């Protein structure tokens, strides 16, 4: 593979990963926490209305998972395209 193709493919893989994560990021916060919160509030999670839970608790937990997932996947992509450090 030529260098240029490889760096192009690397960047494409990176952007693909970013897009997938940003979709989840948007859906849990702006989606479940804001736009659909009134709808989700009809469902109870323990003593929490679900929309309220996403807005004040759930989205934060999911953000953490997203970052570590990103870090792991990104390291895999680095290795696959042989651009990792050391």
């Amino acid at each position: 593979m030529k260098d240029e193709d490889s760096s192009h493919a690397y960047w494409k893989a990176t952007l693909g990963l970013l897009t997938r994560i940003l979709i989840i990021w948007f859906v849990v916060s702006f989606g479940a926490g804001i736009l659909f919160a009134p709808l989700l509030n009809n469902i109870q999670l323990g003593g929490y209305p679900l929309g309220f839970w996403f807005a004040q608790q759930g989205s934060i937990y999911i953000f953490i998972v997203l970052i570590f997932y990103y870090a792991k996947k990104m390291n895999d992509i680095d290795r696959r395209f042989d651009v990792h450090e050391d």
Partner: protein
Amino acid sequence: MELQTTIYIFVGLSFALYIGIAIWARAGSTSEFYAAGGSVHPVMNGMATAADWMSAASFISMAGLISNMGYGGALFLMGWTGGYVLLAMLLAPYLRKFGKFTVPQFIGDRFYSKSASTVAVICLLTASITYIIGQMTGVGVAFSRFLGVSSDTGIYVGMAIVFAYAVFGGMKGITYTQVAQYIVLILAYTIPAVFISLQLTGNVLPQLGLGSSLVGHDVSLLAKLDQVVTDLGFGKYTTALPGSTLNMFMYTLSLMIGTAGLPHVIMRFFTVPSVKDARSSAGWALVFIAILYTTAPAVAAMAKTNLIRTVTPGVVMKDTNVFEKDAAIKYEERPDWMKRWEKTGLLKFEDKNGDGRIQYYNDASKNADFQKKAADAGWKGNELNVNADIIVLANPEIALLPNWVIALVAAGGLAAALSTAAGLLMAISSAVSHDLVKGIFAPNISEKGELMTGKISMAVAIVISGWLGLNPPGFAAGTVALAFGIAASSLFPAIMMGIFSKKMNKEGAMAGMLSGLFVTLFYVFAHKGLFFIKGTEYLDLIGGPNSFFGITPEAFGSVGAIVNFVVAFLVDKVTKEPPAHIQAMVEAVRIPRGSKAVDGAH
């Protein structure tokens, strides 16, 4: 032991600890002063970032605002955590690879122009100083309670201490000090929350307590709170919106992208050893931040419940009707914590109907039925005014927790305010001395001269922000939100385009930053006064408050960011593309291989 003595001991001990660490790790060369030699472990860096990040706004102010706002307060929670996802993925690894100290350096190099770097310095200073005004408000609240003085005097004392503190150590001192501060502040935040959660719900974890039933009842805390606040004429706790859904959306977005554009947070990611570490560092930072941020909503709802229980004792646990004649407590029999806070001027009682009791309710309620009931009960307006910024500090007192818990919270609040103020002052000082003076005006300045310029700029920043903090543009968290809006509208789009668009040129970036900053400041100043000086508001010019689709000035950063992107792309289209070596540099920044330790030299 008496409360005041206990507070002195806790605050004194925590200060001794920070100063001890600062001496131990005292900064030597300029490189160490700014970036601790690029050798901080991701977990440690995460903790320090968390301390740096969680300021007086998060610690002192946020839960109080959520307590007042209910559901809508989630915009702070999501906004100030969701931004880390953006930061981790869109900026941190690339800026680390780029390998320079400061944001203006990146902008200057990427957009091959000293003017671009100067524009970035202007944006950075505007955002950072606004941020420090919010901190000063918080510091004032903390010191006023701690020393039993007015909040103005609290600000003066705070200014002196922040100055001594920031000038003393560099970033390295600050990094390790901040790890200690994180530990103090997180204990101070969670311990009272655990106690209160146990008292109200029997659940140890506040995060679960908020979703549990009240002790001895089979109704959930939130359902009961919804009912009680509605009885008092407020909006329903679990659904109350800040203005409109659109405003909440834009506000949250503004805080998120502002997080990713704030220089003092971004700087943190220059201090990790590798690109790989930069990615996970943001995750660790968020873990440590989330401990506080998931506790905050519980603190908010429980503080609201306890406040109502204090003023109208039977209403929450015994289902007393709020309108009953003796439902509210007599002012003479008010608890001690109210007396203590009355001294600071941040809690006020005014007996409007002369019955000697404290009526606490929403006298601006639009519910005619409620207003009629209130009038029938002889209420003549809300009589208790509680400044939202005191809720967290007063929370353990309201719940009648032991003195050492109250003292710990005071120490935690001061830790939060000091650590962030110090981090921001570092960003300001490096922007002025490194990017402005050394980079542009006096390239031959000696290392000593550079450090001195940095310290002078810190002092100037403290004086300006302290002075403006005496008449703050809002509650601590609200003012800080304005700073995020400014960062969101100016720096974030420029950095992002610098990485994700190879073709973005200097003309586009500069036009974008300036127009984003200008539009946002224009709208903010219309509401808050020119440069936040009271009396210079010009609301008529923009057609009244929140005239742009009902968006509040705190939420306007999102609009500014959109303007920034659009202007940048339009200008970019009609000017010539960046030189080949810049495009090659962008390519190089995108891959991790070849990252090296940060280097301050140009």
